[in-house]
Every structure is written in structure tokens, then in C-alpha cells.
């Protein structure tokens, strides 16, 4: 069984599953007036106990991990004394005459509601700390040690911990020499538990939804914290391929300085373009550090994050886009227009989180409700005066949409009095677009394949539906055939083509895509060195032979077996590096 979540701490681990589910134990009752003082006293005692525990954990983390990580618990200690938490619970005991457990549950609930209203993802993740402190306080009312801590000592190592949610304070008390990988149903990259395990070098995959329900205790489980894959009862070929990926990454790390300024070229001399995906404009230095040849995808909707869906002014947008062009000069910058949910104004979360799969999004939303879109187009056209900017349109489903958008852009160009040519591209991320590349290419100056959505629409798998977690398969023959069709049509029409989905960040899959005819990829900056390193040892003709066979494979495992020789070849650089052989 294969599951896919979000890889948040890199590395590979294989071990027996330990499944941990937190039970909600709540005890609620109303108090006689004589019981109020006793309950307030219980709450005070729980608070003192929690404070001592947190101080102990903080000191321990400071010793074993570092003072920066210990600061997480210093913030939790302040939350413990927060007027909105313990003092609020105390107030509820007095005014509502409810027991301490119930009062605390209500105070925590009130805070959760306040935090849930925030649009800011970072702020929402702070709920992890709040739940941790609140949960600890609740448990302190009925003191007992978290059984997980002892369980880890009793089971056979190595252990892969499968948790519905793992709080930072329990995480800090686990023996991570025995637990060698973490899989959790919830969480994100800035969750404090994740920060903690990442600093310990433990691979982690989060956001799987129902992993705790799908993986049985004791099952052999392999996790890849780099790609987010989790395989239960993994076939040897899978473990083998992951080892190759790790080797490519290790070789790339060692050769980083040398790789940065080299173009990506395959062993048989085929030039491949590697660009970077970017979400936060301030992180453009990471793109440059990775040696990207340009920005292949700037997700402009992230400008909307935290703004509560309010429109971003033309001036702010112009400054952001121009800033990117200046930083990347003379390399090109591809800006994808807002891919936002029209009603909520929130970015469509690709690969997890809130989204409206078949909704009014991308270019549909832009044409439906075009004020925000016109503003963005004006800002983009103005920025394009200062460098090689390309406009990429999301969620295109027909050439008619492209014609309409071009009309809007021409109109904006006339009103601005500018004649600077700006390439307009279309995302290929729904089967309708993939099957009409020949038509789209007549109205688009370039095409960019969004594999994440293309896979989910082709296979009818909503990635956020945990019951379908094992069905999301990038190498399904239906997906590979669509990709092959896109590459063939684009080449025939000489339309520049790139891949910008998650597939493009996996060196071995880039090898397969090269075999399908793709020559340009855009990926997370951190993935560029490994992809470049792998390509240096790839023979594109051998890749083409493998790709042709893969189009007719009947299972993902068969594809894995077919691409194993490619993976081995791409990892060859690992063996040649003297520093890596020891």
C-alpha cells in the first residue's frame, strides 16, 4: 500500500509501525456551590504540575537539541500563564459552576475558534502549541504519564511512529534513537514537532489524513521524508529506488559548489533547462543559490495569503514582480496569475488543505470576475518593461479562454500605451488541456504542465481524500500517456514546454520525463542540485526506451522495476565521489 503526504523532514527510514492515537478523555459535570473552591484548587495544582513538566522538558531539549528549540517550550510556559487560558478556565469554574476539566475544555475551545478564524497559515499552526499546553494541562488534572513514551522502549526498533497528532512536548520525551521516522495525520512544515524532529535528522511525512486508520501496528513501513511517500510492506524495488534517490542527493550535496554554475546536461549531451518554483518573493535568494536558470513558476496567489482575501494593489504587485525581475536579472521570471478560490479569495491549496477541486478557480475565476485580474495584468505588463517576464495562466481548459484572456491583456496594453512583447503561457493541468495541446499552442507562447492537478483529475483522485491516498500515482500509464501526448504535440508545434509539478522535483521521475521528451523543468529550489546531478549520469536514449515500455506497464510496481536501471545510472555519480564512498 502506498500513501502520499507532505515530506517535511528529509531522509529515508524503514521500520515497524507503532500506531498512536490520542484519545479524547473528557469528564464534564456541574458543581454544587461548595465544590467551586475545590475545582479551582485542582486547576491551580494542575497548572503548577504542568509548569514543572514544561520547565523540565525545556531544560532537556536545551541540552539535547538546542536552545532555539527549547524556546518553543518557553513560549508554551507563557501560554500556560495566559489570561485567556488558565485564568479564563478559572473564571468559568466560578461563573458557570462547571468542573475544572470542562472549564478548561471550554477555554481551549474558545481559543481554537479565535485561531481558526485567522486566514494566516502560520498563525493557524500555532494552534499546535496551544493544543499541546491545553492537553498537558488537561492530563495534569488527572495525572498519568503518556503511555507512548514507555511503549517506544518496549517495542522492537527501528520504529516508524504513526500518530494522529504528536505534540511537541511528547515528541521531546521520546527516544528518537528507537523511533526512526514519523508519519502524522495532521501538521505542516512549521509545526513545532516537525521542527524538532527535523533538527534531530529524523525523516517525517505529515498531512496524510487517515494514516493511523490505514496502517496496522507492526506492519513494515518505509517512509521518504523528501518526497512525502509512505509505503506499507514495501517491495524491494521501492526501497532500492529510494536508496538511489538518497545517493543522488548525497552526491549533489557534495558537488554543490561545482554544480551551481554548470548547465544541466545529460550524459549524452542533451541540454536540460532547470528553473525554480517560488512562493514567497523574499526567498528569491534561495532560487539564485540553487543555480536555477530562471523562475519557472511564481505562485502569485501567495501574495493574497494573510490579506484576508482583500485585493492587493497594483502598486504592491508591480513592486513585487519588478523585485523578482531585478533579483533574477537577466534570467526570466514566470508569474502565474492568481489561482485563487473566487469566493474565499484564498489560494487554492495544491496537494492538501482547503480547495475547491472543480470550482471557480484560476482563469475561470479571472474571466468571471475580472477586476482583480485586470489589476494584476496591469501590474505584470508594467513590470515586464524591466525584464524578461512571462505570464502563466492557471487552470486553462480551452483555447477560447486563452483568446478571451489575450483580449483583456491587449486592452490593458493599449491603455498603458506599452508595446513590450510579453509571452503568455497556459498551465496544462486538466485532461481537457492535455488533450488539446495542439489547439492551445496556437494561442499560447509556452506551456507548463502542472502534474499535481493533472494526476488527480486524470485518475479521479482527490488528494485530500484520505480513503484514496493509495490511488494517487504519478507513474500510472494513463498519466504517462497524457504526458507523452503533451510532449509530442508541443514539439511538433515548436511550443516551449516545461513541467512544474512535484514530479519535476524527483530526480528519478525527471529521468523518466526526459525519456518522454520533456527538456525543461521547474521545481523547488532545494531539489535543483539533485536533479542536475542525476541528469549528468542519465543517457536520454536509454531513458526514452524505458519511457516507451512504461507507457504500457500495468502497475506502479512494474514502472518502478522498469526505471530501476535509470535510477541506478543516475546515482552512479555517488560511487565516483571519493568522499561518498566511505
Amino acid at each position, binding site marked *: 500500500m502506498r500513501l502520499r503526504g507532505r515530506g517535511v523532514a528529509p531522509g529515508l527510514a524503514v521500520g515497524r509501525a507503532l500506531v498512536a492515537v490520542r484519545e479524547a478523555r473528557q469528564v464534564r459535570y456541574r458543581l454544587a456551590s461548595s465544590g467551586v473552591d475545590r475545582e479551582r484548587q485542582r486547576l491551580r495544582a494542575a497548572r503548577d504540575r504542568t509548569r514543572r513538566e514544561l520547565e523540565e522538558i525545556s531544560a532537556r531539549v536545551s541540552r539535547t537539541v538546542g536552545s532555539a528549540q527549547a524556546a518553543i517550550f518557553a513560549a508554551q510556559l*507563557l501560554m500556560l500563564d495566559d*489570561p485567556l487560558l488558565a485564568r479564563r478556565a478559572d473564571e468559568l469554574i466560578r461563573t458557570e459552576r462547571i468542573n475544572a476539566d470542562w472549564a478548561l475544555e471550554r477555554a481551549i475551545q474558545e481559543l481554537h475558534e479565535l485561531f481558526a478564524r485567522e486566514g494566516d497559515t502560520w498563525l493557524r499552526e500555532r494552534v499546535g502549541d496551544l493544543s499541546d499546553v491545553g492537553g498537558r494541562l488537561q492530563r495534569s488534572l488527572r495525572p498519568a504519564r503518556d503511555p507512548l513514551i514507555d511503549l517506544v522502549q518496549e517495542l522492537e526498533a527501528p520504529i516508524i511512529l504513526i500518530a494522529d497528532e504528536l505534540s511537541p512536548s511528547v515528541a521531546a520525551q521520546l527516544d528518537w534513537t528507537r523511533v526512526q521516522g514519523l508519519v502524522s495525520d495532521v501538521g505542516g512544515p512549521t509545526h513545532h514537532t516537525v521542527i524538532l524532529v527535523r533538527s534531530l535528522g529524523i525523516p517525517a511525512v505529515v498531512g496524510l489524513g487517515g494514516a493511523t486508520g490505514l496502517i496496522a501496528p507492526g506492519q513494515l513501513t518505509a517512509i521518504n521524508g523528501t518526497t512525502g511517500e509512505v509505503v506499507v510492506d514495501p517491495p524491494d524495488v521501492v526501497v532500492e529506488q529510494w536508496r538511489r534517490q538518497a545517493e543522488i542527493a548525497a552526491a549533489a550535496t557534495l558537488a554543490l559548489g561545482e554544480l551551481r554554475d554548470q548547465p544541466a546536461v545529460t550524459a549524452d549531451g542533451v541540454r536540460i533547462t532547470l528553473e525554480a518554483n517560488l512562493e514567497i518573493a523574499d526567498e528569491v535568494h534561495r532560487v539564485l543559490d540553487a543555480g536555477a536558470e530562471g523562475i519557472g513558476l511564481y505562485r502569485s496567489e501567495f501574495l493574497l495569503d494573510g490579506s484576508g482575501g482583500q485585493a492587493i494593489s497594483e502598486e504592491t504587485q508591480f513592486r513585487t514582480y519588478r523585485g523578482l525581475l531585478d533579483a533574477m536579472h537577466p534570467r526570466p521570471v514566470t508569474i502565474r496569475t492568481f489561482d485563487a478560490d473566487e469566493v474565499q479569495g484564498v489560494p487554492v491549496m495544491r496537494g492538501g488543505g482547503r480547495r475547491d477541486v472543480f470550482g471557480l478557480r484560476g482563469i475561470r475565476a479571472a474571466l468571471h470576475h475580472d477586476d482583480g485580474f485586470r489589476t494584476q495584468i496591469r501590474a505584470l505588463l508594467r513590470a515586464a518593461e524591466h525584464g524578461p517576464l512571462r505570464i502563466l495562466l492557471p487552470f486553462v481548459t480551452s483555447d477560447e479562454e486563452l483568446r478571451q484572456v489575450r483580449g483583456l491583456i491587449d486592452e490593458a496594453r493599449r491603455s498603458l500605451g506599452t508595446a513590450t512583447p510579453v509571452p503568455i503561457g497556459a498551465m496544462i493541468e486538466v485532461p481537457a488541456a492535455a488533450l488539446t495541446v495542439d489547439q492551445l499552442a496556437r494561442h499560447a507562447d509556452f506551456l507548463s504542465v502542472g502534474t499535481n492537478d493533472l494526476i488527480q483529475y486524470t485518475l479521479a483522485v482527490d488528494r485530500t481524500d484520505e480513503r484514496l491516498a493509495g490511488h494517487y500515482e504519478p507513474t500510472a500509464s494513463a498519466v504517462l500517456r497524457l504526458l507523452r501526448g503533451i510532449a509530442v504535440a508541443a514539439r511538433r508545434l515548436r511550443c516551449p514546454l516545461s513541467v512544474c509539478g512535484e514530479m519535476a522535483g524527483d530526480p528519478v521521475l525527471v529521468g523518466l520525463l526526459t525519456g518522454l521528451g520533456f527538456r525543461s523543468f521547474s521545481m523547488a529550489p532545494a531539489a535543483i542540485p539533485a536533479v542536475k546531478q542525476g541528469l549528468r549520469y542519465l543517457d536520454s536514449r536509454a531513458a526514452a526506451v524505458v519511457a516507451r515500455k512504461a507507457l504500457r506497464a500495468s502497475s506502479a510496481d512494474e514502472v518502478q522495476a522498469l526505471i530501476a536501471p535509470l535510477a541506478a545510472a543516475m546515482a552512479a555519480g555517488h560511487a565516483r565521489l571519493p568522499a561518498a564512498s566511505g
Partner: protein
Amino acid sequence: MMTREAMVTSPLGLHARAAARFVRVASGFRSQIRVTRGSRTTDGKSILGLLLLAAARGTVLTIGAEGVDAEEAIDALCALTARGFEDS
């Protein structure tokens, strides 16, 4: 209540560690502390309340204090905000 405005200058805004520093300084005073951003007001000694202000870089906060050491409290908190919540 005595009030004064201060602008958030730290790159990450009033994030967790910054809010923690703010609460620690505020808790050192006997005065009641209030922090207002737009229509939202919170207890300046509440880390959760401060986080919920979601004050990004460039946000102007109104810091208010009432009590025996109100003036010193405002001086200290405005100075802390101005230097990006770093220790002096």
C-alpha cells in the same frame, strides 16, 4: 489610560518569540497593559492575545497602560517594539 503608537519593525512581525518577549517585559510592570491593532484590543500580558493580533511588519500598534508604573511600561514596550523585539 495612557497610550502611545509603535510600529512593528521585525521582519516576521509579532511572531511567537517576539510576543513572548513582549509578554515578559509587560509582566514586569504592575500596570494593566492593553495593545490595540485596528478594532482589536488585547491584554498585553497575554501571548495568545498578542499572536491573534497577527501584526505583520509595518503594522502600527497602540500600546496603552494604566497603573502606578504606566509611563515606564509604555516607554519600555514602545522601545522593545521599535527595536524589533530584540533584547537591548
